[in-house]
């Protein structure tokens, strides 16, 4: 009897391997970046242009109707920056899908929020900042995640047993921060450092036109404070990861072509408890200029009341205005233009993004991050020389 059980256990595990579906996809990418201004740092003086390659395969293995294993490694080789040459496991998890609930074990990525220009509520994953400054590239986060579809919204619990440090460019890397970041010297408030167990809970639900999410996170802040410190080589930034509690609300109301959005957080643990919010709208005109194209107009107001002991942000009192043009052609061509203006100092950041499909499996992306106006004496002057124009060619397989 015991052998029978053992046999069935072995075959139970082995059987799905025959009828399963193993699916491999992904992309390779060549990227070129140009920096119109000369760097302030000696090491990066001659870095007016820089090239890199990236590879991101995705392997999915459907074990049975309920369970899937997903592995998504990522690697980038940067010609100039040893810190930007890096690899990561974006995902390496098993998903058990039981219909009314699901469980994820392993490294995964989770997104919370509704706003376009800043992701305040989104806190589970660490930002892979060497990839880009828009906080949309994320490192895989180890987690045990249970989601229960209750019928009155979805309840989610996250146990996050290991902390991932933010990535920063190296001495030769760009766009650079005002000082080099000494990642090896990172300081943690939690005595068990990266091994501190963080947790988060979330409820999200819908009432007619309203989609609402309420979350709470306790653990090590994904955003470090960068503490200027004297070192034998000069002034450097030392990342300081504090323990925080963050409660957030994200809500969207959808009325025909109007999307009204709000994300708000209250965070404690980085000096005084502070409040931050982003709210605004997105309005879409379909078939604009009597073509097939859709034009979306986006405006978002940013408020962030954090003190000087909290990590630096540009979004203390800012207005973002942007437009998104989707041509709806066979190549899915799209163009996004946006600007963030500091209401107090008028310092302005501009972003342009363009994407189109060149042929089956080939995608072209272009991106520019510019600072047309920086107020004298503002912190942002250090970013003035780090404007960047990026072109990316991706081959999907």
């Amino acid at each position, binding site marked *: 009897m015991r052998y029978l059980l053992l046999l069935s256990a072995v075959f139970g595990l082995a059987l799905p391997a025959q009828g399963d579906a193993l699916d491999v*996809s992904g992309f390779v990418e060549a990227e070129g970046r140009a920096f119109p201004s000369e760097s302030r740092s000696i090491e990066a003086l001659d870095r007016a242009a820089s090239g890199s390659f990236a590879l991101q395969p995705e392997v999915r293995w459907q074990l049975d109707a309920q369970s899937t294993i997903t592995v998504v490694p990522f690697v980038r080789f940067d010609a100039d920056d040893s810190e930007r040459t890096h690899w990561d496991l974006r995902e390496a998890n098993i*998903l058990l899908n039981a219909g009314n609930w699901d469980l994820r074990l392993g490294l995964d990525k989770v997104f919370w929020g509704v706003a376009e220009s800043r992701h305040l509520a989104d806190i589970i994953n660490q930002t892979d900042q060497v990839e880009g400054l828009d906080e949309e590239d994320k490192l895989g986060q180890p987690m045990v995640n249970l989601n229960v579809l209750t019928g009155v919204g979805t309840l989610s619990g996250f146990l996050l047993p290991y902390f991932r440090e933010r990535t920063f460019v190296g001495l030769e890397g760009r766009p650079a921060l005002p000082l080099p970041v000494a990642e090896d010297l990172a300081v943690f408030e939690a005595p068990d450092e990266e091994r501190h167990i963080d947790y988060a809970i979330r409820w999200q639900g819908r009432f007619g036109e309203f989609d609402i999410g309420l979350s709470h996170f306790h653990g090590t802040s994904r955003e470090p404070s960068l503490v200027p410190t004297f070192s034998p080589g000069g002034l450097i930034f030392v990342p300081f990861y504090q323990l925080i509690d963050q409660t957030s609300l994200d809500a969207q109301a959808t009325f025909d072509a109007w999307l009204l959005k709000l994300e708000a957080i209250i965070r404690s643990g980085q000096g005084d408890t502070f409040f931050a919010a982003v709210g605004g709208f997105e309005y879409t005109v379909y078939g604009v200029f009597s073509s097939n194209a859709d034009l979306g107009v986006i405006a978002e107001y940013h408020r962030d009341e954090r003190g000087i002991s909290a990590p630096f942000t540009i979004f203390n009192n800012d207005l973002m205005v942007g437009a998104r043009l989707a041509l709806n052609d*066979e190549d*899915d061509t799209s163009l996004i233009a946006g600007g963030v203006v500091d209401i107090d100092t008028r310092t302005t950041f501009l972003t342009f993004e363009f994407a189109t499909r060149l042929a089956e*499996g080939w995608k072209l992306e272009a991106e520019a991050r510019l600072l047309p106006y920086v107020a004298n004496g503002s912190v942002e002057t250090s970013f003035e020389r780090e404007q960047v124009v990026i072109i990316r060619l991706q081959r999907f397989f």
Partner: protein
Amino acid sequence: MEQLRIILSAVSFFLLVAVGRAETPEEKGLAIAREVDIRNRGWVDSSVDLQMVLENQQGEKSERRLWLRALEIISSTDGDKSLTYFVAPADIQGTSLLSFAKLVGPDDQWLYLPALKRVKRIASSNKSGTFVGSEFSYEDFLAQEVERFRYRFLREEPCPVAEARQLSCFVSERIPTYENSGYSKQIGWVDTKDYRPWRLDFFDTKGDQFKRLEFGDYRIYGGKFWRSHDLRMVNLANGKRTSLRFGAYKLNNGLDKTVFDPDALPRLR
């Protein structure tokens, strides 16, 4: 007993009156649309793979592969729920669109963007927009509930498609009553035997015909449900074409209803 007989004969008298009374073209058009709808009730849920081929004036082709799942909703306020999942082209693999149709008023729609793992509720007023660069509009997929049109029967004639040449077709026009439609009217051909649509002509807001859709390769499921496996849309204004080729349908297959929950979009594989 006698009372019952009187009631029955009274009922049959009223029925005779109702049937015998001359139908207006509007009533007949609506009756045909209802019959198409009623004959297609009871499929419960549906899963199918689909290949979409776009062809431009120069004959250059590009292909999309997707799968569709739908849940039949019979209610006085809500229409069916549907989930569209893109398999190819590879750069949009995993992108999904979830729609809850409403009989009146705007639908609810969510878009899932797999690169960001983001579920985004999107504006539902997008009816006339082209669906992923094809000659189909969102409304061709999502706004097919009977209540969303006004009807008028025009005539009966041999069906205009080679595959159904031996059949007779009802020809009716229907006018969208929902907002933001890109059409002033549509004229449809439905066969008188099985009430299957064979052709649909689309008229733009200026009243000119600019698209024609033909249905073919009908197969029957469960002895009752006819499904076209070959839809060909031609844009007469610009010469572009889009064809849809469906795989075998799975109907009433006990589909897990939770796949139609927006919160479940990130677990689609």
